[in-house]
Protein backbone atom coordinates (compact mmCIF):
# COMPACT_ATOMS: atom_id res chain seq x y z
CA UNK A 1 0.00 0.00 0.00
CA UNK A 2 1.34 3.42 -0.95
CA UNK A 3 2.00 5.77 1.87
CA UNK A 4 -0.93 8.10 2.43
CA UNK A 5 -0.23 11.65 1.30
CA UNK A 6 -0.68 13.96 4.28
CA UNK A 7 1.42 16.67 2.67
CA UNK A 8 -0.40 18.17 -0.29
CA UNK A 9 1.24 20.43 -2.85
CA UNK A 10 -1.11 21.99 -5.32
CA UNK A 11 -3.00 24.98 -6.51
CA UNK A 12 -5.31 27.04 -4.35
CA UNK A 13 -8.99 27.21 -5.19
CA UNK A 14 -10.43 29.95 -3.01
CA UNK A 15 -14.06 30.38 -1.96
CA UNK A 16 -15.69 33.05 0.19
CA UNK A 17 -17.70 32.92 3.41
CA UNK A 18 -20.98 31.06 3.97
CA UNK A 19 -20.79 28.74 0.96
CA UNK A 20 -23.65 26.25 1.49
CA UNK A 21 -23.25 22.59 0.63
CA UNK A 22 -26.40 22.36 -1.54
CA UNK A 23 -25.82 24.62 -4.54
CA UNK A 24 -22.52 26.08 -3.36
CA UNK A 25 -20.60 22.79 -3.37
CA UNK A 26 -22.79 20.41 -5.33
CA UNK A 27 -26.25 20.78 -6.93
CA UNK A 28 -29.11 20.03 -4.59
CA UNK A 29 -30.67 17.45 -6.93
CA UNK A 30 -27.74 15.13 -6.29
CA UNK A 31 -28.21 15.49 -2.54
CA UNK A 32 -31.99 15.07 -2.64
CA UNK A 33 -31.59 12.11 -5.03
CA UNK A 34 -29.14 10.48 -2.58
CA UNK A 35 -26.41 10.02 -5.17
CA UNK A 36 -23.38 8.64 -3.32
CA UNK A 37 -21.27 7.16 -6.14
CA UNK A 38 -18.20 9.33 -6.89
CA UNK A 39 -18.74 8.73 -10.62
CA UNK A 40 -22.08 10.51 -10.42
CA UNK A 41 -20.86 13.30 -8.16
CA UNK A 42 -17.42 14.30 -9.49
CA UNK A 43 -18.65 16.00 -12.72
CA UNK A 44 -20.89 18.28 -10.67
CA UNK A 45 -18.51 19.51 -7.95
CA UNK A 46 -18.81 23.33 -7.79
CA UNK A 47 -20.84 23.11 -10.99
CA UNK A 48 -23.21 25.97 -10.18
CA UNK A 49 -20.41 28.44 -9.45
CA UNK A 50 -17.58 27.07 -11.61
CA UNK A 51 -18.70 24.70 -14.38
CA UNK A 52 -16.01 22.26 -15.47
CA UNK A 53 -14.07 22.56 -12.19
CA UNK A 54 -13.44 18.81 -12.11
CA UNK A 55 -11.66 18.96 -15.48
CA UNK A 56 -9.26 21.66 -14.30
CA UNK A 57 -8.40 20.52 -10.77
CA UNK A 58 -5.62 18.04 -10.05
CA UNK A 59 -5.03 15.68 -7.14
CA UNK A 60 -3.33 17.66 -4.39
CA UNK A 61 -5.13 20.90 -5.16
CA UNK A 62 -6.50 22.63 -2.11
CA UNK A 63 -9.87 24.23 -1.58
CA UNK A 64 -9.56 27.17 0.79
CA UNK A 65 -12.77 28.60 2.18
CA UNK A 66 -13.96 31.39 4.43
CA UNK A 67 -16.16 31.06 7.47
CA UNK A 68 -19.10 28.71 7.84
CA UNK A 69 -18.37 26.43 4.90
CA UNK A 70 -20.80 23.67 4.04
CA UNK A 71 -24.09 24.51 5.77
CA UNK A 72 -27.06 22.31 5.02
CA UNK A 73 -27.52 18.62 4.14
CA UNK A 74 -24.05 17.26 3.59
CA UNK A 75 -21.84 14.42 2.42
CA UNK A 76 -22.16 14.20 -1.37
CA UNK A 77 -19.74 17.06 -2.11
CA UNK A 78 -17.09 15.56 0.18
CA UNK A 79 -17.35 12.24 -1.63
CA UNK A 80 -16.45 14.08 -4.83
CA UNK A 81 -13.57 15.97 -3.16
CA UNK A 82 -12.14 12.74 -1.80
CA UNK A 83 -12.40 11.03 -5.18
CA UNK A 84 -10.57 13.94 -6.84
CA UNK A 85 -7.78 13.87 -4.22
CA UNK A 86 -8.43 17.42 -3.07
CA UNK A 87 -7.65 18.92 0.33
CA UNK A 88 -9.95 21.27 2.23
CA UNK A 89 -8.88 24.15 4.46
CA UNK A 90 -11.58 26.29 6.09
CA UNK A 91 -11.73 29.34 8.33
CA UNK A 92 -14.64 27.56 9.97
CA UNK A 93 -17.32 25.02 9.23
CA UNK A 94 -20.35 23.74 11.14
CA UNK A 95 -19.14 20.79 13.19
CA UNK A 96 -21.36 18.29 11.43
CA UNK A 97 -19.98 19.42 8.06
CA UNK A 98 -16.48 18.78 9.45
CA UNK A 99 -17.61 15.39 10.71
CA UNK A 100 -19.10 14.57 7.29
CA UNK A 101 -15.86 15.56 5.52
CA UNK A 102 -13.84 13.28 7.83
CA UNK A 103 -16.40 10.50 7.36
CA UNK A 104 -15.94 10.76 3.59
CA UNK A 105 -12.16 10.59 3.91
CA UNK A 106 -11.33 14.21 3.06
CA UNK A 107 -8.08 15.75 4.32
CA UNK A 108 -9.50 18.75 6.14
CA UNK A 109 -8.37 21.53 8.45
CA UNK A 110 -10.84 23.87 10.12
CA UNK A 111 -10.54 26.88 12.45
CA UNK A 112 -7.79 28.28 10.18
CA UNK A 113 -8.35 31.90 11.15
CA UNK A 114 -8.08 34.35 8.21
CA UNK A 115 -6.59 31.72 5.89
CA UNK A 116 -8.45 33.25 2.93
CA UNK A 117 -6.33 36.39 3.41
CA UNK A 118 -3.18 34.29 2.90
CA UNK A 119 -3.90 33.09 -0.62
CA UNK A 120 -5.64 33.60 -3.94
CA UNK A 121 -6.95 31.13 -6.47
CA UNK A 122 -4.06 29.73 -8.49
CA UNK A 123 -1.39 30.25 -5.80
CA UNK A 124 0.97 27.32 -5.22
CA UNK A 125 0.21 25.96 -1.75
CA UNK A 126 1.79 23.32 0.43
CA UNK A 127 -0.12 22.03 3.43
CA UNK A 128 0.74 19.30 5.89
CA UNK A 129 -2.47 18.10 7.50
CA UNK A 130 -0.53 16.26 10.21
CA UNK A 131 0.91 19.38 11.81
CA UNK A 132 -1.11 22.19 10.23
CA UNK A 133 1.87 23.81 8.44
CA UNK A 134 0.72 26.06 5.59
CA UNK A 135 3.03 27.48 2.96
CA UNK A 136 2.00 29.77 0.11
CA UNK A 137 4.99 29.51 -2.26
CA UNK A 138 3.58 32.13 -4.63
CA UNK A 139 3.30 34.78 -1.91
CA UNK A 140 6.01 33.40 0.39
CA UNK A 141 3.71 33.18 3.40
CA UNK A 142 4.02 30.57 6.16
CA UNK A 143 1.41 29.90 8.80
CA UNK A 144 0.57 27.24 11.33
CA UNK A 145 -3.01 26.07 11.82
CA UNK A 146 -4.63 23.47 14.13
CA UNK A 147 -3.74 20.01 12.75
CA UNK A 148 -6.10 17.08 12.30
CA UNK A 149 -6.55 15.08 15.53
CA UNK A 150 -4.74 11.70 15.36
CA UNK A 151 -7.90 9.63 15.80
CA UNK A 152 -9.49 11.33 12.82
CA UNK A 153 -6.40 10.93 10.64
CA UNK A 154 -6.82 7.19 10.94
CA UNK A 155 -10.35 7.45 9.50
CA UNK A 156 -9.25 9.65 6.60
CA UNK A 157 -6.30 7.38 5.84
CA UNK A 158 -8.70 4.47 5.46
CA UNK A 159 -10.91 6.42 3.06
CA UNK A 160 -13.58 7.46 5.53
CA UNK A 161 -16.10 5.73 7.78
CA UNK A 162 -16.88 2.87 5.41
CA UNK A 163 -13.20 2.08 4.91
CA UNK A 164 -12.50 2.36 8.62
CA UNK A 165 -15.26 -0.10 9.50
CA UNK A 166 -14.13 -2.52 6.78
CA UNK A 167 -10.58 -2.37 8.10
CA UNK A 168 -11.81 -2.87 11.68
CA UNK A 169 -13.72 -5.96 10.63
CA UNK A 170 -10.78 -7.37 8.64
CA UNK A 171 -8.40 -6.92 11.56
CA UNK A 172 -10.92 -8.54 13.88
CA UNK A 173 -11.29 -11.51 11.55
CA UNK A 174 -7.53 -11.84 11.21
CA UNK A 175 -7.22 -11.72 15.00
CA UNK A 176 -9.82 -14.44 15.42
CA UNK A 177 -8.25 -16.69 12.79
Amino acid at each position, binding site marked *: MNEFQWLLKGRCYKLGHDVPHPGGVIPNWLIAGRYLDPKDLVPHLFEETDPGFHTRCKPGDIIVTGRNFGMGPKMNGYIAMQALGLGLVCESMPFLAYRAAIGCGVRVLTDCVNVTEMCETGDELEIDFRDGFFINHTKDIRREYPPMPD*TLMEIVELGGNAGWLKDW*QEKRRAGAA
Partner: protein
Amino acid sequence: MGMTAVEKVLAAKSGRASVKPGDVVSPDPDFIMIHDGVVMGAKRELDALGITKLAAPDKVMMVTDHDVIYGSARAAERGAFNRKAAAQWGVKNFYDVGRGGHGHIFPMESGLLLPGMFYFDNDRHATNAGAIGAFGFRMGGEISRVLATGTNWVMVPKTVRLTLRGKLKPGVHARDIGFRFAALLKQGGLAADLDYRVLEYAGDLEQFDLAGRAALCSTPTEIRAYGVFVPPSEAILEHARTKAQRPFTPVYSDADAHYDADLKMDIAALEPQVSLPGSVENAVDVSEIESTPVDHAFIGSCGSGMWEDLVAAASVLKGRRLAPNVRLFVAPGSEATNRRLAAEGLLGTFIEAGAVMLPPGCGPCNDAVIGPVHSGEVSISTATNNNAGRFGAKDAKLYLGSPATVAASAVVGKIADARKLARS
Protein backbone atom coordinates in the same frame (compact mmCIF):
# COMPACT_ATOMS: atom_id res chain seq x y z
CA MET B 1 -10.03 24.83 35.99
CA GLY B 2 -13.21 22.89 36.68
CA MET B 3 -15.28 21.02 34.15
CA THR B 4 -18.79 21.51 32.84
CA ALA B 5 -21.32 18.69 33.18
CA VAL B 6 -20.76 17.38 29.65
CA GLU B 7 -16.98 17.42 30.15
CA LYS B 8 -17.35 15.46 33.38
CA VAL B 9 -19.64 12.87 31.82
CA LEU B 10 -17.43 12.39 28.75
CA ALA B 11 -14.32 12.14 30.93
CA ALA B 12 -15.93 9.53 33.17
CA LYS B 13 -17.24 7.46 30.24
CA SER B 14 -13.84 7.64 28.51
CA GLY B 15 -11.82 6.59 31.53
CA ARG B 16 -10.04 9.93 31.82
CA ALA B 17 -9.51 12.18 34.81
CA SER B 18 -10.46 15.22 32.75
CA VAL B 19 -11.23 16.39 29.24
CA LYS B 20 -11.52 19.80 27.61
CA PRO B 21 -13.39 21.07 24.55
CA GLY B 22 -11.76 19.87 21.33
CA ASP B 23 -10.43 16.62 22.83
CA VAL B 24 -11.39 13.55 20.83
CA VAL B 25 -12.63 10.66 22.97
CA SER B 26 -14.44 7.35 22.48
CA PRO B 27 -16.91 7.16 25.35
CA ASP B 28 -18.36 3.88 26.56
CA PRO B 29 -22.11 4.59 26.43
CA ASP B 30 -24.72 3.51 28.96
CA PHE B 31 -26.83 2.49 26.00
CA ILE B 32 -27.23 2.83 22.24
CA MET B 33 -30.53 3.87 20.70
CA ILE B 34 -31.56 3.19 17.12
CA HIS B 35 -34.92 4.30 15.75
CA ASP B 36 -37.11 2.40 13.30
CA GLY B 37 -36.32 4.44 10.21
CA VAL B 38 -32.60 3.70 10.10
CA VAL B 39 -32.38 0.07 11.23
CA MET B 40 -32.60 -1.25 7.67
CA GLY B 41 -29.73 0.92 6.41
CA ALA B 42 -27.49 0.04 9.35
CA LYS B 43 -28.26 -3.69 9.15
CA ARG B 44 -27.54 -3.87 5.44
CA GLU B 45 -24.33 -1.86 5.82
CA LEU B 46 -23.05 -4.14 8.57
CA ASP B 47 -24.21 -7.33 6.86
CA ALA B 48 -22.30 -6.32 3.72
CA LEU B 49 -19.13 -6.15 5.81
CA GLY B 50 -19.87 -9.48 7.44
CA ILE B 51 -20.57 -7.85 10.79
CA THR B 52 -23.48 -9.88 12.13
CA LYS B 53 -22.79 -9.60 15.84
CA LEU B 54 -23.12 -6.31 17.71
CA ALA B 55 -20.52 -5.20 20.24
CA ALA B 56 -23.02 -4.93 23.06
CA PRO B 57 -26.52 -6.13 22.13
CA ASP B 58 -27.64 -5.77 25.76
CA LYS B 59 -26.99 -2.03 25.54
CA VAL B 60 -28.94 -1.54 22.34
CA MET B 61 -32.44 -0.11 22.47
CA MET B 62 -34.44 -0.35 19.27
CA VAL B 63 -37.44 1.96 19.21
CA THR B 64 -40.38 2.12 16.83
CA ASP B 65 -41.52 5.72 17.08
CA HIS B 66 -41.05 7.45 13.73
CA ASP B 67 -43.49 5.37 11.71
CA VAL B 68 -45.65 3.49 14.16
CA ILE B 69 -48.83 2.42 12.40
CA TYR B 70 -47.49 1.81 8.89
CA GLY B 71 -49.34 4.10 6.53
CA SER B 72 -47.82 2.29 3.55
CA ALA B 73 -46.79 -1.17 2.39
CA ARG B 74 -43.18 0.03 2.50
CA ALA B 75 -43.51 0.96 6.17
CA ALA B 76 -45.00 -2.44 6.98
CA GLU B 77 -42.09 -4.09 5.17
CA ARG B 78 -39.65 -2.02 7.21
CA GLY B 79 -41.43 -3.03 10.43
CA ALA B 80 -41.07 -6.69 9.51
CA PHE B 81 -37.40 -6.15 8.60
CA ASN B 82 -36.76 -4.46 11.95
CA ARG B 83 -38.30 -7.32 13.92
CA LYS B 84 -36.10 -9.79 12.07
CA ALA B 85 -33.05 -7.57 12.63
CA ALA B 86 -33.74 -7.41 16.38
CA ALA B 87 -33.94 -11.20 16.51
CA GLN B 88 -30.74 -11.69 14.46
CA TRP B 89 -28.81 -9.13 16.49
CA GLY B 90 -30.15 -10.49 19.77
CA VAL B 91 -31.54 -7.10 20.80
CA LYS B 92 -33.88 -7.74 23.71
CA ASN B 93 -34.64 -4.10 24.47
CA PHE B 94 -36.86 -3.73 21.44
CA TYR B 95 -39.64 -1.20 22.04
CA ASP B 96 -41.72 -2.02 19.02
CA VAL B 97 -45.18 -0.77 18.10
CA GLY B 98 -47.26 -0.25 21.23
CA ARG B 99 -44.42 -1.18 23.60
CA GLY B 100 -42.75 2.03 24.67
CA GLY B 101 -43.58 5.17 22.76
CA HIS B 102 -41.31 8.02 21.76
CA GLY B 103 -37.66 7.09 22.21
CA HIS B 104 -36.78 10.57 23.46
CA ILE B 105 -39.50 10.50 26.09
CA PHE B 106 -40.37 7.11 27.59
CA PRO B 107 -36.83 6.18 28.73
CA MET B 108 -36.77 9.26 30.99
CA GLU B 109 -40.25 8.59 32.33
CA SER B 110 -39.58 4.95 33.08
CA GLY B 111 -36.15 5.14 34.70
CA LEU B 112 -34.12 3.73 31.81
CA LEU B 113 -32.38 7.05 31.17
CA LEU B 114 -31.10 8.58 34.40
CA PRO B 115 -29.08 11.60 35.56
CA GLY B 116 -25.38 11.47 34.63
CA MET B 117 -25.82 8.92 31.85
CA PHE B 118 -24.43 9.13 28.32
CA TYR B 119 -25.78 7.40 25.24
CA PHE B 120 -25.45 7.34 21.44
CA ASP B 121 -28.50 7.77 19.20
CA ASN B 122 -28.88 8.06 15.46
CA ASP B 123 -31.32 10.96 15.93
CA ARG B 124 -30.43 14.55 16.83
CA HIS B 125 -33.33 14.94 19.25
CA ALA B 126 -31.39 12.77 21.69
CA THR B 127 -30.68 16.19 23.21
CA ASN B 128 -33.90 15.60 25.19
CA ALA B 129 -31.76 13.56 27.60
CA GLY B 130 -30.75 16.90 29.13
CA ALA B 131 -34.20 17.09 30.72
CA ILE B 132 -33.17 14.47 33.25
CA GLY B 133 -29.55 15.60 33.49
CA ALA B 134 -28.10 13.11 30.98
CA PHE B 135 -26.56 13.38 27.51
CA GLY B 136 -27.58 11.74 24.25
CA PHE B 137 -25.33 12.36 21.24
CA ARG B 138 -26.48 12.15 17.63
CA MET B 139 -24.48 9.89 15.35
CA GLY B 140 -26.64 9.94 12.21
CA GLY B 141 -25.53 7.19 9.83
CA GLU B 142 -22.45 6.55 11.97
CA ILE B 143 -24.70 4.70 14.42
CA SER B 144 -23.64 1.57 12.49
CA ARG B 145 -20.09 2.00 13.78
CA VAL B 146 -21.44 2.33 17.32
CA LEU B 147 -23.49 -0.83 16.91
CA ALA B 148 -20.49 -2.74 15.55
CA THR B 149 -17.79 -1.48 17.88
CA GLY B 150 -19.68 -0.18 20.92
CA THR B 151 -18.48 3.40 20.55
CA ASN B 152 -17.42 6.14 18.13
CA TRP B 153 -15.30 9.24 18.24
CA VAL B 154 -16.69 12.31 19.92
CA MET B 155 -15.09 15.72 20.02
CA VAL B 156 -15.77 17.25 23.42
CA PRO B 157 -18.14 20.18 22.78
CA LYS B 158 -17.96 23.62 24.30
CA THR B 159 -20.70 24.65 26.73
CA VAL B 160 -22.85 27.79 26.59
CA ARG B 161 -24.69 28.74 29.79
CA LEU B 162 -28.15 30.28 29.74
CA THR B 163 -29.35 31.61 33.09
CA LEU B 164 -33.12 32.02 33.38
CA ARG B 165 -34.30 34.68 35.83
CA GLY B 166 -37.83 34.87 37.22
CA LYS B 167 -40.94 32.72 37.28
CA LEU B 168 -43.15 32.14 34.28
CA LYS B 169 -46.60 33.71 34.49
CA PRO B 170 -49.55 31.29 34.61
CA GLY B 171 -50.43 30.18 31.08
CA VAL B 172 -46.87 30.62 29.81
CA HIS B 173 -45.06 27.38 29.01
CA ALA B 174 -41.44 26.22 28.90
CA ARG B 175 -41.70 25.87 25.09
CA ASP B 176 -42.35 29.62 24.96
CA ILE B 177 -38.90 30.20 26.49
CA GLY B 178 -37.18 28.29 23.69
CA PHE B 179 -39.04 30.15 20.96
CA ARG B 180 -38.16 33.52 22.55
CA PHE B 181 -34.54 32.46 23.11
CA ALA B 182 -34.16 31.51 19.43
CA ALA B 183 -35.66 34.86 18.37
CA LEU B 184 -33.31 36.77 20.69
CA LEU B 185 -30.28 34.99 19.23
CA LYS B 186 -31.43 35.75 15.69
CA GLN B 187 -32.26 39.38 16.39
CA GLY B 188 -29.05 39.98 18.31
CA GLY B 189 -30.61 40.45 21.77
CA LEU B 190 -28.35 37.61 22.90
CA ALA B 191 -25.06 36.64 21.29
CA ALA B 192 -23.75 33.09 21.12
CA ASP B 193 -22.91 30.44 18.56
CA LEU B 194 -24.76 27.22 19.43
CA ASP B 195 -23.16 25.13 16.66
CA TYR B 196 -22.01 21.89 18.30
CA ARG B 197 -22.33 23.44 21.76
CA VAL B 198 -24.05 22.06 24.81
CA LEU B 199 -26.59 24.58 26.06
CA GLU B 200 -26.62 24.36 29.85
CA TYR B 201 -29.44 26.02 31.75
CA ALA B 202 -28.98 27.73 35.11
CA GLY B 203 -30.97 30.06 37.36
CA ASP B 204 -34.59 29.68 38.43
CA LEU B 205 -35.08 26.08 37.28
CA GLU B 206 -37.04 24.68 40.24
CA GLN B 207 -40.30 25.65 38.53
CA PHE B 208 -39.72 23.15 35.71
CA ASP B 209 -40.93 19.56 35.99
CA LEU B 210 -39.60 16.84 33.68
CA ALA B 211 -41.97 17.84 30.87
CA GLY B 212 -40.95 21.49 31.21
CA ARG B 213 -37.32 20.46 31.05
CA ALA B 214 -37.92 18.38 27.90
CA ALA B 215 -39.58 21.48 26.42
CA LEU B 216 -36.47 23.52 27.32
CA CYS B 217 -34.36 21.01 25.33
CA SER B 218 -36.42 21.29 22.16
CA THR B 219 -35.77 24.61 20.46
CA PRO B 220 -32.01 24.91 21.11
CA THR B 221 -31.64 21.64 19.18
CA GLU B 222 -33.23 23.27 16.15
CA ILE B 223 -30.67 26.06 16.24
CA ARG B 224 -27.77 23.64 16.18
CA ALA B 225 -27.05 22.86 19.84
CA TYR B 226 -25.58 19.35 20.00
CA GLY B 227 -26.64 18.81 23.57
CA VAL B 228 -28.81 20.49 26.18
CA PHE B 229 -28.38 20.12 29.92
CA VAL B 230 -30.76 21.08 32.70
CA PRO B 231 -29.12 20.43 36.10
CA PRO B 232 -31.48 18.03 37.90
CA SER B 233 -33.48 19.54 40.77
CA GLU B 234 -34.32 17.59 43.92
CA ALA B 235 -37.74 16.80 42.40
CA ILE B 236 -36.10 15.35 39.28
CA LEU B 237 -33.69 13.29 41.41
CA GLU B 238 -36.64 12.01 43.43
CA HIS B 239 -38.40 10.95 40.21
CA ALA B 240 -35.21 9.24 39.05
CA ARG B 241 -34.70 7.43 42.37
CA THR B 242 -38.30 6.23 42.35
CA LYS B 243 -38.16 4.89 38.80
CA ALA B 244 -34.49 3.92 38.45
CA GLN B 245 -33.92 0.56 36.80
CA ARG B 246 -30.18 0.78 37.55
CA PRO B 247 -27.82 2.82 39.75
CA PHE B 248 -26.95 6.36 38.67
CA THR B 249 -24.81 9.31 39.74
CA PRO B 250 -26.04 12.82 38.94
CA VAL B 251 -23.48 15.21 37.47
CA TYR B 252 -23.27 18.99 37.81
CA SER B 253 -20.84 21.55 36.41
CA ASP B 254 -18.06 22.76 38.67
CA ALA B 255 -18.34 26.30 40.01
CA ASP B 256 -15.14 27.26 38.17
CA ALA B 257 -16.03 25.57 34.87
CA HIS B 258 -15.41 27.53 31.68
CA TYR B 259 -18.31 28.54 29.44
CA ASP B 260 -17.98 29.55 25.81
CA ALA B 261 -20.67 32.17 26.42
CA ASP B 262 -22.72 33.18 29.46
CA LEU B 263 -26.23 34.37 28.61
CA LYS B 264 -29.04 35.67 30.76
CA MET B 265 -32.75 35.81 30.01
CA ASP B 266 -35.55 37.29 32.11
CA ILE B 267 -38.63 35.12 31.78
CA ALA B 268 -40.97 36.73 34.35
CA ALA B 269 -42.65 38.99 31.78
CA LEU B 270 -42.62 36.47 28.92
CA GLU B 271 -45.87 36.15 26.97
CA PRO B 272 -47.02 33.00 25.15
CA GLN B 273 -45.05 32.81 21.90
CA VAL B 274 -45.90 31.73 18.37
CA SER B 275 -43.14 30.97 15.87
CA LEU B 276 -44.12 32.14 12.42
CA PRO B 277 -43.66 29.76 9.47
CA GLY B 278 -40.15 28.96 8.28
CA SER B 279 -38.09 28.81 11.45
CA VAL B 280 -38.35 28.44 15.22
CA GLU B 281 -36.48 31.75 15.35
CA ASN B 282 -39.49 33.68 14.02
CA ALA B 283 -41.16 33.97 17.43
CA VAL B 284 -43.62 36.74 18.29
CA ASP B 285 -46.04 37.31 21.19
CA VAL B 286 -49.29 35.47 20.51
CA SER B 287 -51.14 38.81 20.57
CA GLU B 288 -49.32 39.85 17.37
CA ILE B 289 -50.66 36.93 15.34
CA GLU B 290 -54.03 36.15 16.96
CA SER B 291 -56.96 35.58 14.60
CA THR B 292 -54.95 33.84 11.86
CA PRO B 293 -57.28 31.03 10.70
CA VAL B 294 -55.93 27.48 11.08
CA ASP B 295 -56.85 24.17 9.41
CA HIS B 296 -54.56 21.71 11.14
CA ALA B 297 -53.25 21.33 14.67
CA PHE B 298 -50.93 18.84 16.34
CA ILE B 299 -49.87 18.29 19.96
CA GLY B 300 -46.95 15.99 20.70
CA SER B 301 -43.26 15.55 19.59
CA CYS B 302 -40.05 15.28 21.64
CA GLY B 303 -40.65 18.77 23.02
CA SER B 304 -44.30 18.56 24.09
CA GLY B 305 -45.48 14.97 24.44
CA MET B 306 -45.31 14.35 28.16
CA TRP B 307 -48.12 13.99 30.68
CA GLU B 308 -48.02 17.61 31.86
CA ASP B 309 -48.11 18.89 28.27
CA LEU B 310 -51.25 16.89 27.60
CA VAL B 311 -52.81 18.04 30.87
CA ALA B 312 -52.20 21.66 29.79
CA ALA B 313 -53.90 20.96 26.44
CA ALA B 314 -56.77 19.00 28.01
CA SER B 315 -57.50 21.78 30.49
CA VAL B 316 -58.15 24.06 27.51
CA LEU B 317 -60.20 21.48 25.60
CA LYS B 318 -62.33 20.32 28.54
CA GLY B 319 -66.00 20.87 27.81
CA ARG B 320 -65.22 22.45 24.43
CA ARG B 321 -65.35 21.32 20.82
CA LEU B 322 -62.86 21.95 18.05
CA ALA B 323 -63.77 24.64 15.53
CA PRO B 324 -65.62 23.00 12.62
CA ASN B 325 -62.80 23.33 10.07
CA VAL B 326 -59.91 22.27 12.30
CA ARG B 327 -58.47 18.79 12.63
CA LEU B 328 -56.37 18.21 15.75
CA PHE B 329 -53.98 15.29 16.12
CA VAL B 330 -52.58 14.31 19.51
CA ALA B 331 -49.59 11.97 19.88
CA PRO B 332 -48.76 11.16 23.53
CA GLY B 333 -45.08 10.61 24.19
CA SER B 334 -45.40 7.18 25.73
CA GLU B 335 -47.65 4.18 26.18
CA ALA B 336 -47.57 4.89 29.93
CA THR B 337 -48.94 8.39 29.36
CA ASN B 338 -51.59 6.96 27.07
CA ARG B 339 -52.73 4.57 29.80
CA ARG B 340 -52.78 7.39 32.34
CA LEU B 341 -54.83 9.57 29.98
CA ALA B 342 -57.38 6.76 29.85
CA ALA B 343 -57.29 6.10 33.60
CA GLU B 344 -57.69 9.75 34.60
CA GLY B 345 -60.33 10.64 32.04
CA LEU B 346 -58.28 12.94 29.84
CA LEU B 347 -58.58 10.63 26.87
CA GLY B 348 -62.30 11.33 26.99
CA THR B 349 -61.65 15.07 27.06
CA PHE B 350 -59.60 14.90 23.86
CA ILE B 351 -62.02 12.62 22.07
CA GLU B 352 -65.12 14.57 23.12
CA ALA B 353 -63.47 17.74 21.86
CA GLY B 354 -63.10 16.04 18.48
CA ALA B 355 -59.36 15.39 18.52
CA VAL B 356 -57.83 12.38 16.76
CA MET B 357 -55.56 10.34 19.03
CA LEU B 358 -52.41 9.04 17.33
CA PRO B 359 -50.24 6.25 18.69
CA PRO B 360 -47.37 7.32 20.97
CA GLY B 361 -44.41 8.38 18.85
CA CYS B 362 -43.42 11.26 16.61
CA GLY B 363 -46.81 11.85 14.96
CA PRO B 364 -46.75 14.15 11.91
CA CYS B 365 -43.39 15.58 13.09
CA ASN B 366 -41.56 12.93 11.08
CA ASP B 367 -41.73 13.37 7.33
CA ALA B 368 -45.52 13.51 7.51
CA VAL B 369 -45.92 9.74 7.63
CA ILE B 370 -49.21 10.47 9.37
CA GLY B 371 -51.54 13.49 9.65
CA PRO B 372 -49.83 15.74 7.09
CA VAL B 373 -50.84 19.19 5.84
CA HIS B 374 -51.94 19.95 2.30
CA SER B 375 -50.71 22.71 0.02
CA GLY B 376 -51.83 26.12 1.24
CA GLU B 377 -53.11 24.89 4.60
CA VAL B 378 -52.28 26.55 7.89
CA SER B 379 -51.12 24.49 10.85
CA ILE B 380 -50.29 25.30 14.45
CA SER B 381 -48.45 22.66 16.42
CA THR B 382 -45.96 21.78 19.11
CA ALA B 383 -43.71 20.08 16.52
CA THR B 384 -39.97 20.46 17.04
CA ASN B 385 -39.65 22.86 14.12
CA ASN B 386 -41.65 24.60 11.41
CA ASN B 387 -39.21 24.47 8.52
CA ALA B 388 -41.02 24.43 5.17
CA GLY B 389 -42.29 20.93 4.45
CA ARG B 390 -41.69 19.58 7.96
CA PHE B 391 -44.96 17.65 7.77
CA GLY B 392 -46.40 17.82 4.31
CA ALA B 393 -46.70 20.40 1.55
CA LYS B 394 -43.80 22.82 1.31
CA ASP B 395 -46.12 25.77 0.82
CA ALA B 396 -48.26 25.03 3.87
CA LYS B 397 -47.84 27.57 6.66
CA LEU B 398 -46.55 25.96 9.85
CA TYR B 399 -46.86 27.91 13.10
CA LEU B 400 -45.56 26.66 16.45
CA GLY B 401 -46.86 27.28 19.95
CA SER B 402 -47.14 25.66 23.38
CA PRO B 403 -49.63 22.82 24.00
CA ALA B 404 -52.11 25.31 25.53
CA THR B 405 -51.78 27.74 22.61
CA VAL B 406 -52.29 24.93 20.08
CA ALA B 407 -55.33 23.58 21.95
CA ALA B 408 -56.88 27.06 22.22
CA SER B 409 -56.25 27.72 18.52
CA ALA B 410 -57.90 24.42 17.58
CA VAL B 411 -60.99 25.39 19.59
CA VAL B 412 -61.24 28.93 18.25
CA GLY B 413 -60.28 27.99 14.68
CA LYS B 414 -57.75 30.81 14.72
CA ILE B 415 -54.45 31.32 16.50
CA ALA B 416 -55.52 32.12 20.04
CA ASP B 417 -54.24 32.97 23.51
CA ALA B 418 -55.35 30.16 25.83
CA ARG B 419 -55.53 32.57 28.78
CA LYS B 420 -58.36 34.53 27.15
CA LEU B 421 -60.26 31.35 26.47
CA ALA B 422 -60.00 30.36 30.10
CA ARG B 423 -61.50 33.66 31.21
CA SER B 424 -64.40 33.74 28.76
